[in-house]
């Protein structure tokens, strides 16, 4: 069974069809490349897979599941809680002054004992008189508003990047997006966030779990940095690294997530031949760790050198797929890159 199954994915932006019914299957343990001329829709496919875009049509299944959060009991509880909270707030907002007068001011003389019982009675009588406008209307309105708002927010956040990240999809970006003001180590530690169990009270009170997890996480981060050969730059700010190192740090940050699938968006862009060579070795080593790699790349040396399979996009459509040898010989691919030759017509 394939790890990632993209089925007839279509992305429309207004009238523009950026990706048109693209079908991709990525078996586990392979390195698959996505190539095509500029503007072919490769990065759009990546953004749809990682949940940045909601597909206009088609489905994306990762390890057998849609990459979107399902409706659980906890979601229902959260929605209801928001509804009740809004209702309560609205009831209070509509009545607070008159309620205060009836319940608090009416039953309390300066420096006398507060009359709890009459206050309770006053409270209930207040709401039983005119209960339509005082209680029921704001309650219904608040419940409706809260539920509808929370439902809308939940619907819109079903397919977000963090859902894809939790499912096990990691990615790098075409234009490097590191956390510039954070150190190299912190960048990698942030990549590990999905695997940490420390909550804010653990951190605030420095409970044992915090110390244990910090020690373990730092150790693992250093190990990952050693793997990408960045262990001498641990405390540098990310923005002060050289371009090639920043590319490697992005990969390290993605690897820290221990993903099943790694999406690399033009990792060799801007690298010199020696750096490209070591990048190829790095990608092969990543595959040996059991991570499936999907790659967008323009550097054909890299693509042909390491890919098991290649898919070619042009104007949002998939025009070819196969092994590097097949793709290289495919006339449609040659046409997309070089244009039609006169001799062949």
């Amino acid at each position, binding site marked *: 069974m394939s790890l990632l199954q993209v089925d007839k994915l279509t992305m429309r932006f207004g009238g523009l069809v950026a990706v048109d019914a693209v079908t991709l299957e990525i078996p586990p343990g392979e390195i698959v490349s996505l190539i095509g001329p500029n503007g072919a829709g490769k990065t759009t496919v990546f953004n749809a897979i990682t949940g940045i875009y909601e597909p206009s049509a088609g489905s994306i299944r990762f390890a057998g599941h849609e990459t979107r959060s399902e409706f659980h009991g906890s979601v229902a509880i959260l929605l209801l809680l928001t509804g009740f909270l809004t209702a309560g707030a609205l009831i209070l907002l509509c009545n607070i002054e008159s309620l205060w007068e009836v319940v*608090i001011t009416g039953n309390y003389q300066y420096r006398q004992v507060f009359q709890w019982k009459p206050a309770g009675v006053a409270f209930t009588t207040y709401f039983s008189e005119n209960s339509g406008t005082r209680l029921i209307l704001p309650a219904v309105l608040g419940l409706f508003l809260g539920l509808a708002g929370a439902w809308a927010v939940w619907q819109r956040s079903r397919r977000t990047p*963090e859902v894809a990240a939790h499912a096990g999809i990691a990615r790098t970006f075409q234009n490097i997006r*590191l956390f510039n*003001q*954070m150190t190299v180590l912190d960048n990698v530690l942030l*990549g590990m966030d999905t695997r940490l169990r420390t909550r804010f009270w653990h951190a605030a009170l420095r409970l044992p779990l915090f110390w244990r997890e910090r020690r373990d996480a*730092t150790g693992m981060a250093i190990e990952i940095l050693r793997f990408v050969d960045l262990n001498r730059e641990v405390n540098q*700010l990310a923005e002060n690294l050289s371009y090639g190192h920043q590319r490697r740090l992005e990969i390290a940050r*993605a690897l820290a997530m221990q993903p099943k699938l790694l999406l690399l968006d033009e990792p060799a862009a801007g690298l010199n031949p020696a750096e490209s060579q070591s990048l190829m070795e790095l990608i092969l080593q990543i595959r040996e760790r059991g991570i499936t790699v999907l790659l967008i790349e323009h550097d054909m040396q890299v693509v042909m050198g390491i890919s098991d399979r290649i898919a070619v996009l042009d104007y949002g459509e998939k025009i070819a797929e196969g092994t590097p040898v097949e793709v290289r010989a495919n006339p449609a691919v040659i046409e997309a890159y070089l244009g039609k030759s006169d001799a062949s017509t």
Partner: protein
Amino acid sequence: MKLRFHWAFLLIAALVPVVGLFVPAAQSLGELLRPIFIMAILALGLNILTGFTGILNLGVAAFMALGAYVYAILTCDIYPFQFGFWPAVLLTVLVGLLAGLMLGLPTIRLRGDYLAIVTLGFGEIVQDSLKNMDVITKGTQGINPLPAPTFAGYVFRSETYAPWYYLFLGFLALVVLLNRNLQRSRVGRAWIAIREDELAASCMGVNPMKMKLLAFSLGAAQCSLAGALWASFLGSSGEPGNYDFQVSIIALCIVIVGGMGNIAGVLLGALVVVGCNSLVLETFTNFLKAHELISSTNVYTAPGNWKYMLFGLALILMMRFKPEGLLPSRQVKAELHPHEPPPS
């Protein structure tokens, strides 16, 4: 291990009243420091939002007002609740937490300037509500008098200054400790990552909405704490006009001048900004008046009345020449010492 600035600050501050026993000047300094501690707590609350998470909040005064009024209602003997100081402060902090959550829930999806406008509006709404709900808040009179705080049988009287001093310093130390612990943990890392690049952070599995909501509630809780302490110090909730836009701006000023995202910077900023306001300008005005260099009837020539213009000028100059603040955050320090062991 070297002593970090914020601990050094708190230690030196703790010694001021002791020195004050022998040197009268130190005692008057100590009296001036008390409001500075409260403003520092307020600014640290804002720092969580603006400094760590990168959310511009122009309405922290609203949370301070909320804290002051909730504390006043809970303790004042014109109302039946009459809690003691400690449970009232605890409840106020909880109300602040909830208020931050309630404001955050519907607005947190807004970005940048739009959220800033919402918080600005919230500040005005709270102030006007407090003014107009006079059945509860006594309108522009404020709720007073409030009973003096007590600690294990000891009553804090307004004539004595050292106990108050240590009370506020203790709260400040607690807040500093909490913020430092959060900053150097998964939580602070996620906040800073959201500030740096929200999309990249969410692609790493950080839930920006959740983390921003957490920042909102914790920041609001700290601002409410500042409000409760302020009310207990004044012996009154103060009037709604005390918590106007200027207070939010001063808090922002403290954060920016001190160094966004750095706790030590915020402490220094509070010292510089509030200290400049209440100590330097005041002394300078009195000096000028004593030597008859300015007339005491002309309000325009008194430097004390120029403070907002001076704050504005300071803000512009900081942004132009030292945008990272007087004490930039530790990341910049890490840049200068790449071979030291990891600080986090």
